[in-house]
């Protein structure tokens, strides 16, 4: 990735009068951390990076940014927001377009073809983080770690995030500007990465999820970080009526986790953010990918790929299978 080109492009974009700010990745405050950056000028654009550490899906900020009540007489700032996207992130933008969650004219999409990012936990486990901010680059073998003045070659398979192993769209599916050449796609090793759980019998599976859901802290980080969880009036927050009690116990946790998974069926674009941020390490990706696979196999729908598509949950085809409907 040519960082100079990226920064130059970003600087040009934020200089445009119709652009409010640009969402990009910056170095964090220590170790391997990356901080989402809200770039408003060329100076700040010069701090942008794109590396295998850039896991965060910045498309989430397109719907997350709050609009506080404006002082009287002040006009809302309707300028465009520019956003840097990897392949998976671009699918989030596309899905938002499909659902009319955002307008095409309201965004400038800067596509970053993506050779795959790392699993941060694995990285920190194998190559302990230090207080110095480290760099990680893509290399021929996989990754090149620059830490405290030392260079370490790391094989791709050793650190590649699970979502990336399974990725079928590393090149942005929608963009206004592309930085860098498209990458060569790869074959996901096992379809959707759910085979392992699927292979077990119902009882074992149930036990597995029981244990996982029991750990849930109901912090709702998974919802907040999700680019497609953007309902203004989420049923989780609603008190009247209360759909899911706030008590943290296995049954309420399960109700919550399943409700969220179902709300995302046919909408989740597999960016893996929920799983990344979950402080209880719940393998949410497995759940979402299982549903994604069902939707794809049964209904032939894949979210976040074609901006002209009908939203899955709002569309009906005469030949849709119905056997699971009671």
């Amino acid at each position, binding site marked *: 990735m040519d960082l100079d080109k990226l920064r130059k492009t970003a600087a040009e974009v934020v200089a445009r009068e119709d652009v409010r700010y640009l969402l990009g990745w910056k170095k964090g405050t220590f170790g391997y951390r990356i901080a989402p950056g809200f770039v408003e000028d060329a100076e700040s654009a010069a701090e942008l990076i794109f590396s295998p550490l850039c896991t965060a899906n910045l498309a989430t900020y397109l719907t997350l940014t709050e609009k506080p009540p404006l002082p009287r007489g002040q006009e809302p700032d309707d300028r465009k927001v520019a956003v840097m996207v990897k392949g998976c992130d671009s699918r989030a933008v596309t899905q938002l377009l499909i659902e009319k969650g955002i307008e095409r004219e309201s965004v400038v999409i800067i596509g970053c073809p993506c050779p795959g990012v790392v699993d941060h936990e694995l990285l920190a486990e194998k190559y302990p983080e230090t207080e110095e901010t480290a760099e990680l680059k893509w290399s021929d073998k996989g990754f090149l770690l620059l830490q405290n003045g030392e260079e370490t070659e790391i094989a791709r398979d050793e650190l590649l995030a699970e979502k990336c192993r399974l990725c079928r769209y590393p090149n942005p599916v929608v963009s206004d500007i592309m930085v860098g050449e498209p990458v060569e796609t790869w074959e996901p090793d096992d379809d959707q990465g759910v085979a392992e759980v699927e292979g077990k019998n119902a009882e074992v599976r149930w036990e597995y999820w029981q244990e996982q859901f029991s750990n849930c802290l109901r912090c709702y980080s998974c919802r907040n970080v999700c680019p497609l969880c953007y309902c203004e009036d989420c049923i989780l927050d609603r*008190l*009247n*009526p*209360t759909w899911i009690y706030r008590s943290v116990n296995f049954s309420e946790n399960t109700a919550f986790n399943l409700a969220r998974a179902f709300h995302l069926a046919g909408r989740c674009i597999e960016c893996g953010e929920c799983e990344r941020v979950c402080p209880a390490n719940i393998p949410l990706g497995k759940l979402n990918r299982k549903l994604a696979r069902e939707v794809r196999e049964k209904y032939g729908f894949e979210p976040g790929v074609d901006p002209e598509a009908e939203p899955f949950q709002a569309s009906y085809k005469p030949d849709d299978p119905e056997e699971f409907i009671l």
Partner: protein
Amino acid sequence: MINKENPYIPYNATVEDTWYETGGERAIKTFKVVFDDENIRKSWEHFPGQCAMIGVLGVGESMISISCSPTEGEFLRFSVMRMGKVTQALHQLEPGDKMTVRGPYGNKFPLDQWQGKHILTIGGGIGQAPMRPVVEYVKSNYDNYGGLTMIYGARTSGDLCFKEEFEEMSKDDQLSCHLTIDIEEEQWDHNVGFVPQILMDLNPSPENTIAVTCGPPIMIRFVLENLKKLGFEDDQIYTTLENRMKCGIGKCGRCNAGNMYVCKDGPVFSYAALKEVPEAFA
């Protein structure tokens, strides 16, 4: 009194009487309630400005101003606007039904310190709920105060609370009572206009006077401005804050405005004190 053993345990109380003050989607209903336990009834003490957590078991609790003065008798009064879950459930209660009460919470209007002064209350809508005990308290101690003026307004005459008391108030020559509604109505022979404007028209002297106000935020803002124009000093003005509350005893953290816990350090504040609290007018 606050349950010293366990302040989260409420007392049972029975609704003795109840009536609607206003109608519509956000109706206001008043409840006169009496504690079931005689000991609590006897030992309960509250003072104008304080509130209580009232609730319905199985639904929840809400912080509500105690809208009667202790001088009125061994009962409590609450006037509740129908907003969400708990207030809707409260609205379904009829005489003989049970509710739970815990408290009293919060500080008090310093009525003892105000002895000898003229008291001016300025209320809007449901904001009259904490004003009413002040009025009642002064009414039963006229000798100790320099006079009593009450300004109270709402959008329409139907939105005014405590209407059944106005008639008697108008006969009380020690009370200067000024009612107002926002828009002209037939058969309304009081003022028409916003509360802050009525205040200006009345032009009360700040001399030896304490002004107390409660109502919608926008009203409070203009009332404060106007009181300043009339020459009131910051420490002659009092108001109450309304922040979300859960525990009422300075534990749950929720009600803070800056470094104040509104449930403990409030809800009554002098304007002088509020100016030091950055979040007070958020």
